[in-house]
């Protein structure tokens, strides 16, 4: 039983904290997310130099052999500053899917490029009708000689506008919503028939609708065995939940600090509003909500690589439910306690609220994961 970070992990944390302090003041972030790309190539190169892009990967693929705890450390600090670079989409979702489901040759080819900062990936797993069900895949991949031809559309693909390659789920067999028959393919962003309609999301990040119109890929683009891609996809999304949980914990931490500071200084009726017991108790509930989320993000980091897939699933779902509860409460109440200023675009609190709200809309919301957790328990 040990909930402390190792010395190396503390150094990593300090280094990320420094990056966020230097580069992610609210004004700096606003300028950045208002650019076309929405994030900074310079930052991405810095991440590569600092080893953050290769962190979770095995040394044989140019990585540093980090554990999910290191990923948690990085994302919690990122969350404190609402870092906009497509870290989860490239490192956790894209490269994570490769680690979970790709062949050795595919990893050898792509992961070093990711670790060096030369390649961004994105994972297309949601579709127009799928909501959060990863098995609800209608995109088709049909065999044509030695190749596959992909047709369909992947929805709200995080990081799509600047991804060099996509990993997409497509049906090679089975009926709608069967877990069997789902395959994962690596698709070049500039392959014929691929089109990306990119857009900003409400939290300042970037995503895109990825249309696959008769896209021809070779057999070497198939990850793992045909029709058996679901397990890797599901594991990847569970890992993304652990990462998003850490980011949400960081965002809640900043939002709580900001709100506490506000109620200590804002005066009405001749005293700081934090003197009113109704606001004190609300703030205490927000503090507890953050502590609960933090406990579960730590639990997820420790359990998400569990050999037992059911333990991993339960950890991911229980954590996502907690994040849904905590993030919603902290986000909504932070705005309430700030009053009017919290509603404005020029004040930071609302931007944290937006990011927290969109994390709840990602990888399955609280309702979805409560049902999944209940079915597993």
């Amino acid at each position, binding site marked *: 039983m040990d*909930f*402390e970070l190792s010395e190396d992990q503390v150094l990593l944390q300090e280094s990320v904290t420094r990056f966020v302090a230097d580069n992610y003041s609210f004004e700096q972030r606003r300028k950045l997310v208002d650019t076309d790309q929405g994030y900074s190539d310079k930052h991405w190169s810095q991440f590569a130099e600092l080893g953050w892009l290769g962190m979770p990967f095995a040394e044989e693929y140019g990585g540093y052999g980090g554990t999910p705890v290191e990923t948690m450390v990085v994302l919690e600090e990122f969350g404190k500053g609402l870092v906009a670079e497509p870290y989860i989409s490239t490192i956790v979702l894209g490269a994570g899917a490769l680690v979970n489901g790709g062949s050795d040759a595919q990893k050898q080819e792509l992961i070093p490029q990711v670790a060096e900062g030369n390649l961004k990936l994105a994972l297309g797993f949601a579709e127009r009708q799928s909501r959060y069900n990863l098995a609800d895949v209608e995109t088709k991949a049909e065999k044509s000689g030695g190749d596959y031809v992909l047709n369909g559309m992947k929805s709200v693909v995080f990081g799509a506008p600047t991804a060099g390659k996509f990993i997409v789920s497509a049906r090679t067999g089975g009926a709608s919503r069967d877990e069997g028959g789902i395959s994962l393919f690596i698709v070049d962003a500039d392959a014929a028939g691929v089109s990306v309609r990119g857009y900003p999301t409400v939290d300042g990040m970037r995503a895109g609708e990825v249309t696959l119109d008769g896209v021809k890929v070779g057999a070497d683009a198939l990850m793992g065995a045909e029709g058996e891609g679901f397990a890797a996809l599901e594991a990847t999304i569970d890992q993304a939940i652990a990462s998003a949980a850490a980011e949400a914990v960081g965002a809640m931490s900043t939002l709580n600090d900001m709100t506490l500071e506000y*109620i200590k200084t804002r005066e009405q009726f001749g005293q700081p509003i934090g003197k009113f017991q109704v606001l*004190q108790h609300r703030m*205490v509930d927000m503090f507890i909500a953050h502590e609960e989320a933090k406990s*579960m993000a730590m639990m997820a980091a420790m359990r998400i690589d569990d050999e037992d897939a059911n333990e991993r699933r339960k950890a991911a779902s229980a954590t996502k439910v907690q994040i849904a509860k905590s993030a919603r409460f902290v986000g909504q109440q932070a705005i309430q306690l700030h009053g009017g200023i919290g509603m404005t675009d020029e004040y930071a609190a609302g931007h944290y609220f937006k990011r927290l709200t969109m994390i709840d809309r990602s990888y399955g919301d609280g309702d979805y994961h409560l049902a999944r957790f*209940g079915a597993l328990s």
Partner: protein
Amino acid sequence: MHMNFSEAELAFEAKVADFVQANLPPDIKDKVDRGIELTREEVRRWMEILGAKGWAATNWDKKDGGPGFSIAEKFLAEDAIFMNGAPKMVHFGTRMVGPVLLAFGTDAQKAKYVPKILTSEEVWCQGYSEPQAGSDLALLQCAAVRDGDDYIVNGTKIWTTSAHCADRMFALVRTSKEAKKQEGITCLLIDLKTPGVEIRPIITLDGKHVFNQEFFDNVRVPVSDRVGEEGDGWRIAKFLLGHERSNATYVSMNKRNLRKLKEISADQRADGARLADEPEFSRKLADLEQDMLTTTTMAMRQLAAASADKPVGPEASIMKLRVMDAYKQCHELMMEAGAYYAQPFETGHIRGEANTSWVGPDYLYRMSPDYFESRAMSIAGGSHEIQKDILAKRALGL
């Protein structure tokens, strides 16, 4: 960072579980399982079995006569004791009075009281609240006036858990009305058999007799039974409340109650299927289990911090709030699971005094009483609102 107990710790847990399975008397286990109130004799019998094994005072150091468990062992021991069906007991002697005597008592007091606390030969209760002094404990008025080598105590104490099973009371009394209300409070050890002590039962909503009110009419208490100096009472009480707020035990209680709730909801029918599969109920069940997983994880974090000798901060109040919320919710669902059979209420069965069979499934008849009893969990030991005041002040600086 890891969440695993060591091999040695797990082996220790198994050892405690084996002991409880072999030594918990079947009649007591059966009563606990059915939620029937234990008699004074039964409470003492089990406490003495644990005491003889040296495990009554799981929190005591070896040098004080305790088992010297590590913090992880303490947690695992208590968990194994609960999960194997032992009664929920409030060990005022080992958890509260003992540590206070070890910290503040005279050598004579330690020699006289500590050995019998360790063996549970003497059972203690604590006299804190009074009718006018609840959350605002410092308003207490029960008066002790010096008369030679004695104090003469007059007044009343209320909400005293298990006073009717106890030999002695650790009481806070007022020795001065001059000073600030927190000053002028003194700790006395009162022998409940002293002339002038009257203990009246308070029957709660669940039909049980756990709480009592005591009346003191010119009760003589030797000055040698004063803990600390006159006026030290508030400082000592705060030390004690710190002990009372370590609520890890309730994590194990919750675990046991959840196990029971799952058994019940697997057995109860709804539309011909298991109640556990009814959409609304299964959702609440999952939500509760998720909550409990969060509180367990927080408890583990605190345990790990305590094992590393980090000071326990405001987390103790967070645990009290969240653990008790889950406790209450679990009992609410057990009551809901009963539907119509949540309604029969024959106190004789609850008190273990009836010789008729109960109405409905034997696991259901106590669920409503337990639900009503559970509402006390956010009142006793510092209400939820007081815990939030503490957090606002100490953790947030408000």
